[in-house]
């Protein structure tokens, strides 16, 4: 059955029915190609979202000031809320149990120039607590982040991002050098790199130094902390509690959701996780649909092939072909075509994804599209099996009909 002769006979038949073979091959290759591209696109989307979450702690809660929108105890709406050091200390004190890392941040105002020698750039200068490192995942690749001693002594230390280091120092070593921030000299103690592109446009200095050296008195711009051992619903309760505390300190309605903003990444992460499941389900739905379309296509063409070949089958039977040989011949032809075409679609699909990865830089929406090869291979095998079954049913019927009936078929 698997002799060279059989294969030669099959190759001869395929070679002499090029259009028919091509159409079968095309529907299979297209199905696999689409599946790979879809799976890849879904994965790319997922990778991008994942990457943007990796750039920050997923259990952080950020608190930003806002502007009141409701009248409260005779006070007019439209007042700006200004946070200060007391907000930070009381938040830490009142919610101590579950807080892991924390920071309050102050943004240096003014020209915000950072210079070294003749090079001068302008980026955000942020005064932060040591906890900022873990909250922002601003991991040092060289040196260290701000520590408690920097804070206690209000040292003039600065942590640059790798991007800014390159702009100022080119290929030179930056660690231990002095740079001027708004014309005040600071010593470079570390270089960090954030996964998120936009979060590299800033430098960090000790919070205490920022307030003192740049005349910010006790103002803060925002505060953040990470929580441990809390469920999403518990963090929601914590949000309500925080709102009440801030409202009483700053005299605004606790129900006024514009007076301050709370960004609970734990809650966001849960929502995005649900979105992940949604995307996965969607990709699978389309993928399975594509496979079914491929199977239907192959079955359809095999049905036509067998119908078209009824007369040929009759002739073959008249000159002595046993039914078994008719069935195996048609099935092997189907399997051969679907295998080659499936492989071709696989290679083409992976190629397109690779090309896309190479040409389009990763963004926040799309990153490293890649198909799960195991799934793609299973899909190809499934298509081949279905092609074989699709060929088998009509081939067996054709092999069963009397040769004289098959011969009469036109």
């Amino acid at each position, binding site marked *: 059955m698997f002799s060279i*002769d059989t294969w030669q006979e099959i190759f*001869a038949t395929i070679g002499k029915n090029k259009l028919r073979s091509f159409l079968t091959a095309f529907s299979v290759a297209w199905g696999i190609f689409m599946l790979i591209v879809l799976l890849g696109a879904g994965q790319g989307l997922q990778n991008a979202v994942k990457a943007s979450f990796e750039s920050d702690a997923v259990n952080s809660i950020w608190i930003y000031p806002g502007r009141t929108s409701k009248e409260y105890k005779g006070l007019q709406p439209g007042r700006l809320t200004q946070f200060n050091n007391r907000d930070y200390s009381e938040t830490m004190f009142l919610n101590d149990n579950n807080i892991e890392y924390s920071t309050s941040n102050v943004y240096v105002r003014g020209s915000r120039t950072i210079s070294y020698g003749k090079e001068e750039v302008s980026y955000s200068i942020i005064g932060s607590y040591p906890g900022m490192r873990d909250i922002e995942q601003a991991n040092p690749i060289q040196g260290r982040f701000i520590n408690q001693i920097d804070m206690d002594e209000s040292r003039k230390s600065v942590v640059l991002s790798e991007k800014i280091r390159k702009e100022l120092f080119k290929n030179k070593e930056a660690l231990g050098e002095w740079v001027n921030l708004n014309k005040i000299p600071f010593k470079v103690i570390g270089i960090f790199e954030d996964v998120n592109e936009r979060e590299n446009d800033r430098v960090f200095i000790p919070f205490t130094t920022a307030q003192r050296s740049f005349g910010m008195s006790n103002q803060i711009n925002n505060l953040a902390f990470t929580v441990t051992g809390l469920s999403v619903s518990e963090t929601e309760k914590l949000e309500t509690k925080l709102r009440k505390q801030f409202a009483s300190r700053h005299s605004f309605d606790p129900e006024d959701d514009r007076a301050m903003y709370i960004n609970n990444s734990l809650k966001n992460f849960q929502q995005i996780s649900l979105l992940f499941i949604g995307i996965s389900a969607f990709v699978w739905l389309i993928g399975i649909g594509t496979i079914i379309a491929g199977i239907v296509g192959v079955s359809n063409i095999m049905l036509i092939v067998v119908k078209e070949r009824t007369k*040929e089958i*009759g002739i*073959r039977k008249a000159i*002595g072909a046993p*039914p*078994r040989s008719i069935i195996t011949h048609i099935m092997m032809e189907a399997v051969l075509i679907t295998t080659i075409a499936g492989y071709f679609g696989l290679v083409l699909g992976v190629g397109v994804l690779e090309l896309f990865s190479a040409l389009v830089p990763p963004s926040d929406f799309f990153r490293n599209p890649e198909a799960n090869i195991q799934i793609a291979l299973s899909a190809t095998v499934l298509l081949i099996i279905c092609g074989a079954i699709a060929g088998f049913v009509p081939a067996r019927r054709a092999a069963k009909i009397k040769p*004289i009936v098959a*011969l009469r078929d036109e």
Partner: protein
Amino acid sequence: MITIKDLHKSYIMGQNSLHVLKGIEFTINDGELVSIMGSSGSGKSTLLNILGLLDSYDEGTFHLNGLTMENLSESKAAYYRNKYFGFVFQSFNLISFKNAQENIALPLYYQGVSRKKRNQIALEYLTKVGLRDWAHHLPSEMSGGQKQRVAIARALVTDPSVILADEPTGALDSQTSLEVMELLTQINNEGKTVIIVTHEQEVSALTNRIIRLRDGLILEDGPTEKVLANV
């Protein structure tokens, strides 16, 4: 040797049953050149198809070289067809995408003959029917007479004992018909049994024995001169 006794065959078409063969009996010995004659609907083609194991029969007995041909499985029938019979059809029935040589070699493929060997044998038979130079032509590139000669070569390639020809000249002009009949006569002279179904007297006149059918029964069966004398 073919022996048939009380052979019946009906076709069932919906509610109606069409009784085509109503008790056929004859014996054909090895090396005979026989024509089966009759007008259309007389059952002559059905009879030939049953003889060639392309169709089944309902009642009676059919022995080929002493073996019964009753209730054969499809694989067994295929084996016997390949071993004992060569077929020549009115519409040639060549496989359109195979060239002359490949068409002729195909029955040997089902016997498991190696590719090289069967191509060589096919070429011998092509030479025999005078088409050696046409080995690599597709059927669509050949005339009716040439196609029929390829079909005859294919029928002969397995060296069967019986050649069954169903209206072999039906699609050919009279000159080509004559050439094809000469070829069949020559094959008969080489010792093969040849059974030809035809409705043309000119064709049956070239055979040695005529079996005349009418409405599923044998009307006459005898030497050609005798039967034709009665017409």
